[in-house]
């Protein structure tokens, strides 16, 4: 589903990603690990088409994520490590998601309920005024409601309490069949039960790729 061939990314003289080659397939639930600066976020940003590769290429279902970004992003859900300080109200953010991606608003509400997020009293509040946990829950609800073939989570539970983490992993187990899930994480014990592949990166290279 995602083919990465000899992919490198440089920022000035710094090499963030160094000739990485890998294939991520449908049904893979991958834990992407490594120390800070290992190149995990750079790899994800290249997959999402945010960065132009210095060399090599990324293909998602045969498509270029930069040239065919709309087709690619219809298939991808993404939750960043830290919820950004979006100034839109919750209702505006949900309208943006639903109109741009054809997501069912009811489904966002359903997953928000499952994540124990009470949206109704907060719909007219600015997203950035919510607590860190509430923001993360909403982004997770949106990512699940999008029902994408590829789900990318960059430290998705960083702001969540243990109960909310359990809710997230339970929902994910229900949703991830026949999909590709990619988790950037430092806490392997948390995702151990739901991943079937572990990739370790260091200094921009893949140092190990284990199938569990």
């Amino acid at each position: 589903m995602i083919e990465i061939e000899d992919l490198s990314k440089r920022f000035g003289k710094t090499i963030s990603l160094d000739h990485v080659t890998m294939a991520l397939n449908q049904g893979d639930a991958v834990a992407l690990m490594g120390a800070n600066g290992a190149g995990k976020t750079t790899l994800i940003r290249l997959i999402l088409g945010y960065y132009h590769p210095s060399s090599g290429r990324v293909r998602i279902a045969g498509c270029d994520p930069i040239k065919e970004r709309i087709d690619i992003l219809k298939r991808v859900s993404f939750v960043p490590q830290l919820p950004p300080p979006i100034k839109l109200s919750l209702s505006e953010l949900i309208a943006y998601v639903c109109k741009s991606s054809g997501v069912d608003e009811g489904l966002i509400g359903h997953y928000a309920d499952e994540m124990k997020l009470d949206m109704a009293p907060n719909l007219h509040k600015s997203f950035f005024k919510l607590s860190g946990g509430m923001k993360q829950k909403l982004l997770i609800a949106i990512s699940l409601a999008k029902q994408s073939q590829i789900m990318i989570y960059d430290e998705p539970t960083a702001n969540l309490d243990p109960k909310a983490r359990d809710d997230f992993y339970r929902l994910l187990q229900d949703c991830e069949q026949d999909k590709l899930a990619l988790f950037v994480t430092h806490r392997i014990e948390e995702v151990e039960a739901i991943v079937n592949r572990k990739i370790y990166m260091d200094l921009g290279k893949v140092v190990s790729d284990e199938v569990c």
Partner: protein
Amino acid sequence: MNNLLLIAYLDLKESIRANWFMIYSLVFGGLIALFFIAGITESQVMGFSGLSRLLLMYIQVTIIILPIFILITTVRSISGDRDSHILEYMLSFPISLKQYYWGKVFGRFITVFLPVFMAMVIAMIYGVFKGTDVPWGIFFLYTGLLFSMSSAFLGIAFFISSLVKSSEMALGISFFVWIVLLAFIDIALISLMLQNRMSEGLIITLALLNPMEVFRVAAISLFDPELTVMGPVAFYILDRFSQGAFVALSIIYPMMLGVIFATLGYRVFRKKDLV
């Protein structure tokens, strides 16, 4: 197209709630109120009185403050979203870069133009209510000039915003642009001419390239072209051009400049790393 309008609509709503928009609207609305309170419409200077005089005062203040207001409020539109990782999240949805960028431009244009325009409309309505003669010719000329100048500085701001990575840098560059353009209106041009014995052709070209100077000369072109307050470059331009031709140029040129800079900004936005 729907996504473009969606982005424009959301940007507009977000801007209207922002503190900067409130201050921006209060400044221009407050100026008009201040002019009325100060009795500008009752006074007469060089043959101008009533609403004509008020609009002249308004436009002269606007020449200085509108460009910097537009630059500092708009320049962080893309670079600020990039800094705070908002762009990273918002662009993870299937919206084309073209829709996102031009939606932002469109939404922001309405935000910056509307308060400036509405302040003039309120002045007109108040003038009619008080039984003053309404100078429609001046009103339409100034509307065209404000529209055009807003386009120019909005385009420049989006270009800077796309070009630089951090919003602090974008803010610094916009101040620099404003100071340079402000310095290169009449007085600094004349100093240059005197000190360096530059050719008058070069001086006039520099003046005509500066959207602030074009705006200024067009705004005062309705008045007596022999007024000494205009400055020598303005006098020279108005002496050479017919008034109609110069007014047309002063509306078309800044608008084109805005479109060119905004398009260049889009090209940079599309070609560079997004986050």
